[in-house]
């Protein structure tokens, strides 16, 4: 109890609270702008933290992290342009709801689900960090391969009636991820003699191009058809369409709970990330839903599932960092830098030697979550007002921000053209009924699955039994088989329906 009071005393300073608020606002704004991602914002804020006390600096970085992870959902819902990769799953139903005039409902739901995910994730970090870290440490290449393979089954779950097109899009994403240096042997693959491609296709170019530019191209085509100026979205005049009722909350709560559990689990495993957590949660929510046909057409469970999962990652990614000193992603690697600069070495000894600091940090995370809720609710009317911005203003600005964001994030004009190429590809895919999300899933999971498969083959002397003799890997392999059989059975039933 004394430690809690000491922690409260350390964290509850005007400077810390202000830095949390500044971090959250910067995070939300940057997360909402396509092309500007959370790692970039955290990296740029790092030098400022050197002059601050470790707690103050980390409070700001955590604010940026949490705010940015949520911020991605705003543009995803309003204009179908995910600000972050994780928000791509939110866009599928969030934007469908917005197109039905329910932007207020979708935005509110994304706030509630995000805060719920963050809060539970923070509590898990505080209560069970070391236990979860021990499980996460058992993951080797076979476990990563099995988990990656299981995550790839999301493609089958989210593709619905267009299963073949979804699978092709997913395979295309994996193929595109193989461009550039081979991750094991360093050989150049599929670069076609273009020097810039030897470094691989940039993820940022894919997400901005395939989602934002393709949407901009679809919208400009609509301009030609109507030849008049009109707003992107209209807001429904029925107040029920723009609030989250108790019935809505009851309906989405199981999805939020599952999403949060998945987010916490995925976040604790180094190297997976929020996007996979969001898509996995979305797929699971659809699988368990009584109305799976509504997914992709404005299912509120879809928004809740993806948002709770991607924000639940924010607390649990700190589990391997703080307990073992292992950064799970770029953001926690930067936070590791912020800690070590101040002479704080993460690991078991940090908990023993710096107990007050850890307590204050944990309390600080809960305060950031609380402030996040307040700031997001204050900003909500502003976000909804963005819906009323005419399309002839909004999309030119979106395109300018996409080009600028890609240029800044990659430092290369070539990648702007790659982004445009992905934009054209995304546009063609939309026109021919191919879903874009599976391509993104394939692109994210491709390298993970390939590296894990090839490493597994090396350590097991080319024996595939390694995936079934290790318990965690075996569980995921069995789950993969269950999902594949279930999707195939569902498809079979659909095809044979009279």
């Amino acid at each position: 109890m004394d430690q809690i009071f000491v922690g409260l005393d350390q964290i509850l300073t005007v400077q810390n609270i202000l830095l949390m608020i500044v971090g959250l606002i910067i995070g939300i704004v940057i997360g909402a702008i396509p092309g500007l991602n959370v790692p970039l914002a955290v990296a740029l804020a790092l030098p400022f933290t050197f002059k601050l006390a470790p707690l103050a600096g980390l409070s700001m970085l955590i604010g940026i992290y949490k705010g940015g992870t949520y911020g991605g959902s705003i543009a995803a819902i309003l204009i179908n342009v995910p600000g972050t990769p994780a928000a791509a799953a939110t866009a599928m139903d969030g934007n469908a709801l917005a197109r039905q005039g329910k932007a207020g409902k979708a935005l509110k739901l994304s706030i509630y689900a995000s805060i719920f995910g963050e809060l539970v994730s923070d509590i898990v970090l505080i209560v069970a960090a070391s236990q979860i870290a021990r499980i996460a440490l058992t993951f080797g290449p076979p476990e990563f391969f099995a988990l990656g393979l299981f995550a790839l089954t999301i493609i089958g779950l989210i593709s619905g009636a267009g299963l073949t097109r979804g699978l092709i899009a997913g395979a295309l994403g994996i193929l595109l991820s193989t461009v550039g240096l081979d991750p094991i042997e360093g050989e150049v693959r599929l670069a076609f003699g273009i020097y810039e491609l030897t470094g691989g296709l940039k993820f940022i170019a894919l997400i901005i191009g395939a989602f934002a530019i393709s949407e901009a191209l679809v919208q400009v085509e609509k301009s030609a058809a109507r030849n008049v100026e009109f707003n992107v979205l209209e807001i429904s005049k029925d107040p029920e369409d723009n609030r989250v009722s108790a019935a809505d909350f009851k309906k989405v709560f199981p999805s939020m709970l599952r999403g949060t559990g998945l987010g916490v689990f995925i976040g604790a495993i180094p190297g997976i990330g929020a996007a996979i957590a969001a898509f996995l949660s979305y797929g699971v929510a659809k699988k368990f839903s009584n109305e799976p046909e509504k997914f992709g057409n404005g299912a509120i469970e879809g928004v809740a599932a993806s948002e709770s999962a991607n924000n639940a990652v924010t607390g649990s990614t700190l589990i391997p960092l703080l307990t073992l000193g292992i950064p799970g992603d770029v953001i926690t690697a930067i936070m590791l830098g912020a800690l070590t600069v101040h002479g704080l070495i993460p690991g078991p000894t940090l908990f023993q030697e710096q107990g007050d600091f850890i307590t204050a940090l944990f309390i600080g995370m809960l305060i950031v979550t609380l402030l996040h809720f307040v700031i997001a609710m204050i900003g909500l009317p502003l976000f909804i007002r963005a819906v009323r911005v005419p399309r002839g203003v909004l999309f030119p600005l979106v395109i300018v921000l996409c080009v600028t964001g890609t240029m800044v994030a990659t430092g290369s004009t070539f990648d702007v053209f790659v982004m445009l190429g992905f934009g054209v590809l995304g546009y063609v895919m939309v026109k021919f009924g191919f879903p874009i999300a599976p391509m993104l899933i394939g692109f994210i999971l491709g390298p993970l699955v390939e590296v894990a498969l090839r490493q597994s083959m090396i350590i097991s002397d080319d024996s595939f039994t390694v995936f079934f003799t290790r318990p965690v890997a075996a569980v995921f392999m069995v789950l993969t088989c269950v999902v594949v059989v279930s999707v195939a059975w569902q498809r079979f039933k659909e095809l044979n329906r009279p």
Partner: protein
Amino acid sequence: MTQGVRDVYSGGVLLVLSIALFFVIPGQVETTVSDTLTPAFVPTTITVLIAALSAVLLVQGLRSRAQETGGGNETITSGGLGYVAVTIGVIIAYAAAIPWLGYIPATAAVLLGLATLYGNRNWKQIVIIMVIAPPVIMVFFRYTMLVLLPEGKLFG
């Protein structure tokens, strides 16, 4: 165009492309002496998978050509495609022009072009966006992201 017809077109094109890529891959992936899975393994396997799925899509499309099977109700019009092509051209010109003209003039010009393409005829609104947005974005990147956007080679 029904989804079935689209599936026939997309399945056919993807089948041809994936078969072509299957023969191109050996020349595009540097070979190694590795005994285990080589760098060509995943690209080759995925290409074969795409070819197989494209064949399935083609057959599905041929079977259901006469009826709409869902999965997309987007229409393609020649006028619309013209707008799309012009927009792509404008974005290419914009990206190429930034280093030469500088960020502010290039962005102002592209905003004018794009706003017109998106059907905006409110000239007062367009001028306000052209004047305000580029410097605001530039200042945001300079002071928040610590990134200097190009000022243009043509103007020294």
